[in-house]
């Protein structure tokens, strides 16, 4: 099976760009590198989109390859829940924080900072639960 490691590699690259770009945006919202104009981080969206679609496609292929392994593992559904929460959080950040930046000199609202913290936690949860799938599956084939 030559395709399996290649699909895993694509899944890791997509993860790095998706989670990495979201984390960069979150860190800026939390006040790091504050010389970056908050509204300019909108430019990261194409990277986030690319990472998401790389991983959605490679993820579906991995699921098709080993359906029993994943669908019998509760950690897989935990991972999907983390991803859903992270995506919703990131959408809220884009709509309510990045595209509605505070006035010059003012810091981001507490709500914006909480959303950024949530995003970091949910994306980290997705990565960790994804890695732990290998250690928690009980059945490989039907």
């Amino acid at each position, binding site marked *: 099976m030559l395709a399996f*490691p290649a699909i*895993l*590699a694509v899944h*890791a*690259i997509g*993860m*790095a*760009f998706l*989670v*990495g*770009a*979201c*984390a*960069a945006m979150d*860190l*800026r919202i939390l006040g*790091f*590198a*504050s*010389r*970056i*104009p908050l509204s*300019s*981080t*909108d*430019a*990261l969206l194409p*990277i986030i989109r690319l990472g998401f679609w790389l991983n959605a496609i490679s993820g579906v292929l991995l699921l098709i390859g080993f359906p029993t392994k994943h669908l019998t593992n509760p950690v897989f559904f935990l991972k999907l829940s983390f991803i859903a929460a992270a995506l919703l959080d990131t959408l809220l950040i884009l709509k309510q924080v990045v595209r509605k930046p505070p006035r010059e000199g003012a810091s981001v609202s507490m709500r914006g900072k909480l959303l950024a913290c949530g995003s970091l936690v949910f*994306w*980290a949860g997705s*990565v*960790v639960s*994804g*890695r*732990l799938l*290998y*250690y928690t599956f009980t059945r490989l084939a039907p």
Partner: protein
Amino acid sequence: MMTHYQWAWPIAECLHFLGLCLLIGTVGVFDLRMIGLLRRIPLGALHRLIPWGILGYSINLITGILFLSAYPDQYIHNPAFQIKLLFMTIAGMNVAAFYLTMYRKVAVMGSEEQAPLAARLAGAISLVCWIGVIVCGRYLTFYRPPNYFWCPWC
């Protein structure tokens, strides 16, 4: 430690993946900006996120050394690991060249400004190397020594 505690290995792996995200999210994004994408973000200001990339790199260096020291033979004779080290060496020399020759110019550049050709090249080399490091890291498992008979140089 890595072989005595059942959870040490998976925890170190999770940290290795999180460190990787930090590295690509800061250094990788900075590279993309240098080669000419994401131009709305001021180049000099974006560099302020690099300490988070150094944190990610440090996490991965430490966890990587833990993996290596637990099963050195699995790595030293593994072609995927050897190529990974090659990519890391090139990335390291590229970083040194960037800070020694280009950083001063790049640090003061704002949004919409195009980085000099040498910096664009450094950004491209860095991206290729780190993506290569990820791919080799993912392939490590599949080229552990019992299967390395095909490797022409091992």
